[in-house]
């Protein structure tokens, strides 16, 4: 008996189904119509039609961040594919597993500047983990399998596959559905375990530290290592700080948690870093938004750096003890080694260190003053936290609201905090929240945004209606591009060049016109009640337009070109 033969388009869909893909985020167009036709004739993979391909990538990204699964995007050639670029770059910077299937003009037309032709593999080359030019029908299943494997293993990242139209069409060549779920590649074998000698060295250094800080990043979230991290923190009784990407890696309510570090981190976190004798970096990459001036960064600390990606180690800050491996596996190795050495923290050193940290904590650097009737943006985040009892998925756009959310919503669990940390992509929040809501329909999913960011993908309100995605959008509306304005106030002599939004729409009416609920909050006394109302509406999207104090700045803030702990605590006050 001969095996059943399938078209390329059918093979794409069959492979996605075999890879257990539930959702495909995309937008149809000429070169991928055969895939859409194949999707129409099956029920395993649900296609979510966005209104702009950028949103498809962010939606897949949000889905991936919340679930840990690979987010999958389908776009047509040319503009469909180029519209994905920002979303691919966003996923790349934050190491998010994503596969983007892009159409391409028929093989015979490639290079002719055919209608809707772009070299998407070329365009995306610097922002992908890998990409494939698939050129034969028979190669489709294994190319997809490889793409998923590459996207989701080692340091995850986006993978682009270009599929020319002629290999998809049913009237052209067909092939059997042959597919090896076990992928092996001679050129790609990511490290798993940390080298045992490095583990020993790391533990020897950690156990002799007098002032140890654990600095953990997005790697802990990606590797689902939060529980192990907490165990390590408790075993060492060490202070732990999270990067923006690492929030939730240890509970924001844990006694040992000293807050986020970096540009808008807490004083105690940055001070602890600056005064540490040993820094244990776990799945973090010494980003410039953490280090401030690298030449002044923690000169007295011995740095133990654990990361799956060797390029992240000693790229900006020299690591004294590098450990390459999956962060969950390495933490287990560290715990085992500590166990074998029967380690307990030296009580005197540990107590001295904590006493010092408590003094910095007492400054309460993450705080604000409610000095007039205006709604402070921080107060909105606090209310949001109270109402959702800290259990919401908070998906953020980029700007002041992002920093306020990071500072004032303590995340108890990993994957609760979803934001574009590396690329800082405005317009990320809403589609990301939609991807999360799709994965977790019964949870509170918030899109925290501002009047600038929300307008960068606001067309997705239409998608939300079509697929019934009742996210709660909370827009901290300050009638300006707040973070830009803050920098202009602080660095550019208060010249607000192009940071005003002088022609904002009526967001309530706008939400209503898309078939959603719009609520505006104007005064402080109505804040809690109206927010309660918004969260009480479970089956409809609610757009909450909160008119906040337009003069509020994000503090604390590192002083430019200074050391990690050179900070403004509030306007004009240095630490």
């Amino acid at each position, binding site marked *: 008996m001969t095996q059943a033969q399938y078209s390329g388009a059918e093979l794409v869909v069959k492979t996605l189904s075999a890879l257990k893909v539930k959702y495909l985020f995309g937008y149809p167009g000429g070169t991928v119509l055969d895939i859409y036709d194949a999707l129409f004739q099956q029920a395993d993979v649900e296609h979510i039609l966005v209104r702009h391909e950028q949103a498809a990538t962010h939606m897949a990204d949000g889905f991936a961040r919340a679930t840990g699964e690979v987010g999958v995007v389908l776009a047509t050639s040319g503009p469909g594919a180029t519209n994905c670029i920002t979303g691919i770059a966003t996923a790349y910077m934050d190491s998010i597993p994503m596969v983007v299937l892009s159409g391409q003009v028929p093989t015979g037309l490639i290079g002719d500047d055919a209608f809707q032709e772009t070299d998407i*593999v070329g365009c995306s080359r610097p922002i992908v983990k*890998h*990409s494939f030019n698939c050129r034969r029908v028979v190669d489709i299943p294994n190319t997809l399998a490889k793409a998923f494997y590459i996207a989701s293993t080692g340091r995850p990242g986006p993978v682009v596959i270009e599929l020319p139209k002629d290999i998809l069409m049913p009237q052209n060549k067909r092939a059997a559905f042959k597919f090896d779920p076990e992928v092996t590649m001679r050129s790609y074998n990511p490290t798993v375990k940390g080298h045992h000698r490095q583990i020993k060295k790391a533990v020897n250094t950690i156990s002799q530290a007098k002032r140890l800080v654990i600095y953990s990043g997005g790697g802990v979230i990606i590797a689902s290592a939060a529980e192990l991290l907490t165990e390590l923190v408790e075993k060492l009784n060490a202070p732990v700080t999270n990067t923006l990407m690492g929030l939730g890696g240890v509970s924001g309510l844990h006694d040992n948690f000293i807050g986020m570090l970096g540009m808008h981190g807490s004083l105690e976190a940055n001070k602890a870093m600056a005064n540490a004798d040993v820094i244990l970096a776990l799945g973090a990459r010494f980003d410039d938004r953490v280090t401030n001036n690298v030449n002044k960064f923690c000169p007295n600390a011995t740095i133990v750096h654990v990361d799956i990606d060797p390029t992240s180690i000693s790229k900006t800050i020299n690591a004294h003890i590098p450990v390459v491996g999956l962060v969950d596996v390495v933490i287990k190795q560290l715990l085992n080694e500590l166990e074998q050495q029967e380690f307990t923290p030296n009580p005197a050193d540990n107590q001295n260190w904590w006493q010092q940290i408590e003094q910095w904590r007492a400054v309460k650097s993450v705080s604000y003053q409610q000095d007039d009737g205006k709604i402070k943006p921080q107060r909105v985040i606090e209310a949001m936290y109270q109402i959702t009892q800290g259990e919401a998925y908070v998906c953020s756009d980029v700007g002041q609201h992002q920093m306020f959310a990071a500072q004032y919503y303590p995340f108890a669990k990993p994957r609760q905090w979803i934001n574009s940390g590396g690329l800082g992509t405005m317009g990320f929040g809403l589609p990301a929240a939609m991807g999360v809501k799709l994965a977790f329909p019964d949870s509170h999913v918030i899109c925290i945004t501002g009047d600038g960011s929300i307008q960068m993908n606001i067309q997705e309100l239409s998608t939300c209606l079509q697929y019934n995605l009742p996210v709660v959008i909370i827009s901290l509306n300050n009638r300006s591009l707040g973070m830009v304005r803050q920098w202009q106030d602080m660095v550019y002599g208060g010249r607000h060049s192009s940071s005003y939004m002088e022609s904002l729409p009526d967001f309530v009416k706008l939400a209503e016109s898309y078939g959603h609920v719009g609520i505006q909050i104007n005064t402080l006394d109505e804040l809690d009640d109206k927010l309660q109302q918004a969260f009480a509406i479970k089956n409809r999207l609610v757009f909450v337009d909160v008119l906040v104090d337009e003069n509020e700045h994000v503090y604390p803030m590192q002083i430019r070109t200074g050391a990690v702990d050179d900070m403004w605590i509030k306007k004009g006050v240095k630490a």
Partner: protein
Amino acid sequence: MRRILAILLENEAGSLSRIVGLFSQRAFNIESLTVAPTEDASLSRITIVTKGNDKILEQIVKQVNKLIDVIKITDLTERSHVERELLLIKVLAMNEKSRSEVKRITDIFRGSIIDIGKQIYTIELTGDVEKINAFIQVLANETEIIESVRSGCVGIARGDKALSVK
């Protein structure tokens, strides 16, 4: 410091562009680059001559290694190695004196004249970079250089050390 990197990678569409793109994207220097398939047609070997201090070189090696297509990369300059470059050069050889002088210089450098035109000699020379530079310098003092092409450096480790898939 000058470094010679040997890279073994999958011989697939786009592999070379990933290497070249990586160098420009991260502002790494490329002095020369050569590429060709190996005896195993599924593999390509690239030799890149670059410059940088230890920190930059460490990043280059790690970043290249991170590319999915790359099987191995090694810094040949770290240990004993052989490097060669091929030069093809056309020089003016108008009269008896200049022809015999060009021939003499070519012999001294152990090059060979591989083609003769009405007024032009084409010479082939293999050697390391210094030898080739010296040869070009000497020729330039003697006659007029019409055209030249250099292959870029290729290199291999001395002794039993080998760059292979294994």
